[in-house]
C-alpha cells in the first residue's frame, strides 16, 4: 500500500497512522517534520513543482517498499504557507520487522530532502528568504546509494 500526497491543508497524522497500522505489518515507524519557531520564523512557505513532486514522492515510496518489503509506505508533504508548529512532512513505513520500518523511514526522509522539488521560503518580519541547500542533506541522501 503506497500513499503519496501533496497537500495544502494540515497533515492528519492520526489518520495516516491508521492507514499504516491497518496494513498488517506489525511494525510502524514514522517521521514528522515541523516548522520550528526557535529562530524567529513567523511563516514558512513551501513551493513545489506540481506533478513532478508527486512523481518524485511516488518513486521514493515504491523504492522503499521494494527495498524493505514494506506492507505500506506513506509520504505526505504540505505546501503553501505554514506557521511554526505545523507539520511540513510525514513519512511512514509499515513492515513485518522493526529494523525494516525504521530504516525505510530514514531512507524516505533523507532522500525526500534531495530528490523532491520543494523549496522553502522563511519569513521573519519584513524579511522573506529562500532557504539554501544543506551539504549534510546531500550526505544523508548519499548513504542510501547501493554500491
Amino acid at each position: 500500500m503506497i500513499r503519496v500526497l501533496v497537500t495544502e491543508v494540515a497533515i492528519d497524522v492520526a489518520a495516516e497512522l491508521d492507514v499504516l497500522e491497518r496494513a498488517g505489518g506489525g511494525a510502524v515507524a514514522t517521521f514528522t517534520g515541523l516548522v520550528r519557531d526557535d529562530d524567529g520564523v513567523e511563516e514558512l512557505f513551501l513551493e513545489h513543482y506540481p506533478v513532478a513532486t508527486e512523481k518524485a514522492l511516488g518513486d521514493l515510496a515504491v523504492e522503499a517498499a521494494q527495498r524493505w518489503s514494506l506492507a505500506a509506505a506513506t509520504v505526505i508533504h504540505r505546501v503553501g504557507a505554514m506557521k511554526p508548529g505545523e507539520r511540513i512532512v510525514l513519512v511512514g513505513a509499515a513492515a513485518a520487522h522493526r529494523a525494516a520500518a525504521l530504516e525505510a523511514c530514514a531512507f524516505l526522509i533523507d532522500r525526500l530532502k534531495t530528490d523532491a522539488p520543494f523549496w522553502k521560503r522563511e519569513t521573519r518580519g519584513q524579511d522573506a528568504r529562500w532557504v539554501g541547500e544543506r551539504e549534510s542533506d546531500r550526505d544523508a541522501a548519499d548513504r542510501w546509494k547501493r554500491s
Partner: protein
Amino acid sequence: MIDLLYFAWVRESIGLGQERVAPPDDVADVAGLIDWLAMRGGGYAEALGDKARLRAAVDQLFVPLDTSIAGAREIALFPPVTGG
C-alpha cells in the same frame, strides 16, 4: 516550442513562473538555454547568471546542466531543492 517553468527565487527574479520559448538551433543543452535566457538581462540575468546555483529538470526528470534539450517539451529551472 518549449515550456519553461521557474521556481523559488528563480521565479521571483524573472517575475513569472512559466513561459513558452523557441530557442535558436545553436542552443543544444540546458546550460546553453540558461545562457541564452540570461542574455535577456534584467531579472533573467540576475536569476540565471550563476549556473552553480541552478538545477534543472527536463520533462520532469532532474538532470545535469549538460543534458541535451533536443525534443524536450518542458524544462524547469530552479535552485537546489529544500523540502522535507
